[in-house]
């Protein structure tokens, strides 16, 4: 029967789309079941119990609660649920207690409908005879009630498990503005979005990812604002891949990425509900996944790497300075080591004389060539950064800072590396952390540029930059070129005041201006 366990779970892609808190949304996905040998519920309760227990054989978290009504002991039923995934108080008081104590009218014929409509208190009840749906409900924290004499089952929404509290995301802190962040429960996350966007145009389409994990995910957009073509393309891509499990949105992100080999992501991600709401209002589409606080937003333009939600909450002068600094920091972090090597090893005439004197003095009795020094120190920096990430947080941060200082100063004193190289590496490293969202891309670009300029000097660096530009201008995110200035100009290098930012990104949104889209129901 474990064969059934497998096939059932593999093929069971129907999910009851009930909101965690009892609201009802809607079913969106029709199951494609081909198997004709699937089990069918009978009218005999004991057979049915055996059937379900067999499927959950060796899974001892399945609780089978047998119930007989106190006044009419011929009314027999049985509740199945998974221990730990249900809200026990709700189950006991609203379902089991009424079933035990209700005085049934003996003349009533349709017992199961009476139970569903008159007896139990649960906010959401579903009647089904579909075996896959029953299994799916059980494993997702619902309770399934089987009644003797009926081949239908009642599914109660009793989901209730511990979730992390809503907290500010560590990676995306802001100086001002909302401090809530997503957590691992998709329904809680959707609630956060729904609270910000109180409009019937906010559309939420559910989808299930992962053949084994059956992870709930959803596409979220604002109708009339989001581009329909992009939405259709997203759905097409989401249907095209299959994987056994999706534990984070990145699993999906890499499947649907237009540029799978690009170090620059073409799909954005955030843990902030306000960021997602902002992007939705700009006509972008969000992709939520249960079990992760990260939400994908798409299409994702290159300039979005440099935008922070802070930008929109702080004074626009300050925000613009910050954004220009981030763009400058990006150029600096990819260029600084390459340009330093090019100038000090190839184009000595470009160095101002006093600077050259100090570099010559610093390089006295340093054993390695500048390029080797630069590579080693950059790798050292990445090691330190990675160590900082991997270490337990209570010792990680302080140790990595101290480590960086000691390694830098000690290396200079020991004449292993020259001080200017450490300065350059530190500059590149620090400015790299300014834009953490393209960290991976930055490291790769930096090393490529450094290799090129160590072979050809500035010539190589310029070649590298040209290549980078050509590459970036060729990349598309869901058909939108990521560099093509499709973002409205008011929100590119500087953040204009809000009264000047009434245009949504061109080509992206169907409704292009923000000022006259009132969102009133027609």
């Amino acid at each position, binding site marked *: 029967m474990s064969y059934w366990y497998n096939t059932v779970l593999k093929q069971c892609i129907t999910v009851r789309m009930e909101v965690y808190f009892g609201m009802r949304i809607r079913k969106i996905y029709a199951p494609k079941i081909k198997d004709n040998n699937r089990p069918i519920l009978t009218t005999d309760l004991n057979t049915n119990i055996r059937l379900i227990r067999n499927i959950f054989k060796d899974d001892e978290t399945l609780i089978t609660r047998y119930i007989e009504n106190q006044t009419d002991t011929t009314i027999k039923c049985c509740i199945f649920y998974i221990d730990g995934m249900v809200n026990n108080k709700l189950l006991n008081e609203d379902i089991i207690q009424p079933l035990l104590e209700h005085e049934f009218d003996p003349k009533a014929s349709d017992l199961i409908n009476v139970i569903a409509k008159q007896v139990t208190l649960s906010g959401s009840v579903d009647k089904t005879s579909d075996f896959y749906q029953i299994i799916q409900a059980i494993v997702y924290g619902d309770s399934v009630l089987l009644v003797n004499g009926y081949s239908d089952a009642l599914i109660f929404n009793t989901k209730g498990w511990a979730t992390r509290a809503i907290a500010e995301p560590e990676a995306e802190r802001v100086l001002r503005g909302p401090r809530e962040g997503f957590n691992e429960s998709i329904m809680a996350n959707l609630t956060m979005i729904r609270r910000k966007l109180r409009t019937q145009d906010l559309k939420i389409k559910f989808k299930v990812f992962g053949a084994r994990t059956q992870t709930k995910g959803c596409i979220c957009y604002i109708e009339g604002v989001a581009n329909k073509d992009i939405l259709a393309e997203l759905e097409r891509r989401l249907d095209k891949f299959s994987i056994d499990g999706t534990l984070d949105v990145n699993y999906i992100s890499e499947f649907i990425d237009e540029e799978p080999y690009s170090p620059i992501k073409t799909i954005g991600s955030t843990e902030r509900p306000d960021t997602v709401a902002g992007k939705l209002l700009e006509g972008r589409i969000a992709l939520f996944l249960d079990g992760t606080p990260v939400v994908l937003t798409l299409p994702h333009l290159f300039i979005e790497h440099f935008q922070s939600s802070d930008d929109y909450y702080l004074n626009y002068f300050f925000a613009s300075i910050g954004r220009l600094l981030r763009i400058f920091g990006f150029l600096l972090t990819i260029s600084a080591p390459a340009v330093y090597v090019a100038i*000090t*090893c*190839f184009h*000595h*005439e470009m*160095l101002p*004389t006093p600077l*050259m*004197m100090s*570099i*010559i*003095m*610093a*390089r*006295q*009795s*340093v054993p390695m*060539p*500048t*390029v080797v020094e630069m590579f080693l120190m950059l790798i050292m920096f990445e090691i330190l950064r990675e160590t900082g990430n991997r270490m337990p947080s209570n010792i990680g941060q302080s140790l990595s800072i101290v480590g960086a200082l000691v390694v830098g100063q000690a290396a200079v*004193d020991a004449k292993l590396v020259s001080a200017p190289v450490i300065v350059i590496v530190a500059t590149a490293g620090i400015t790299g952390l300014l834009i953490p969202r393209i960290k991976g891309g930055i490291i790769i670009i930096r090393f490529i540029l450094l290799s090129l300029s*160590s*072979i050809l*000097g500035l010539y190589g660096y310029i070649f590298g930059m040209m290549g980078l530009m050509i590459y970036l201008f060729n990349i598309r995110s869901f058909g939108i070129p990521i560099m093509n200035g499709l973002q409205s100009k008011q929100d590119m290098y500087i953040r204009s005041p809000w009264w000047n930012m009434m245009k949504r990104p061109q080509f992206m949104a169907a409704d292009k201006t923000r000022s006259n889209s009132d969102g009133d129901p027609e």
Partner: protein
Amino acid sequence: MKRQRKVLIFLSIFITILMTGCANYRELETLAVVTGTAFDKGSDGTGYHLTFEILGQLGGGGTQGPTVQSQLIESDGMTIFDAVRNALKKSDKKLYFGHCRILIISNELAHEGIDPVLDWLNRDSEPRITMNLFISKEKTAKEVIEQKSLNNPITSYALSNIDKNNPKFLSKTAYVQLYQANNMLGGEGISLILPALVIANNQNNKITELGGTAIFKKDKLLGYLGSDESKYLVFIKNQVTSGLLIINMESASPDISLEIIDSKTKVTPILTGKLPEMKIEIKMQVALGEMQTSADLDTESGIKEIEEKASATIEVNIKQLITKVQREYDSDIFGFGSTIYKNDPDYWKKIKPQWDSLFQSLNIEVSAEMEIINTGLSKSKTKVGG
């Protein structure tokens, strides 16, 4: 299999790129950075004797780190390039001229002609055409570059800075960079002038200082103008941006200093007569910087007096200078010929063959217009009580 091949192709390309080595890759510390070069005649009368000042280091080893120190490399060769390469007989570091800022040519070499010296400097890719050129008024160029400067460890850079400040505050000699010297050498109706360096005393130490202007005809040195004469030369060439004007108001010795704030010189040829004539108009704004006279001239009429006197002084001195150059050197260092050429090329073509004699008898009109626009922080002359 296909993937393996791809990886192999990638690897072979990548490795061959790395294996090509770095043709032009040079670490900074493997270079002897030349800061200044002195050109002398070879000791046996042939060839050249070059003295390079390079960036050396002093100290190091401790926590302090090394500091920059001037170092000299001397080298002989049959040609300039030969001498430059011969330096490698002594130096383990290759000479690098990208940061060479000054060139000092000895008196002796300059007398024979500087054109052979300049050819390598113009042809080679490393030396810059913005280097400052000097003529050593001393016996050799080497002794000029040898002297320690006041506070810059590198004498060449000190001299280069002094020369850079000259047009800004002093205007007592021409400021000539290599490309300007090339233009003057090759230009029509203009002769080369270069600043000269002399050795002076400072606190019983020898030190190199600016010492007037060297006058050339073609590429050969003819003689020197003193510092004060050079100022009027710079006036005619319209290169004065600042500096002082010293005039005698009451006595034979100078008693008033005027600081030049703005000065414009216009040289116009008058080609209507039988012989060409030149008209020099100078308009300047000055500030009264110092007044040692017994009478208080810081009044409206006094200022007027000073203005008139100063204008007259300039006119007289400029005339004197031109006459001296016409008589003694017969070299058109003022560029009158090129002014005529720029105004009327056809006319210049006609008179070009006789220009030397024409220059000697050239009639010059000078008019200076002076305006004192402020008198500093004082309202009157500093008073003596009683």
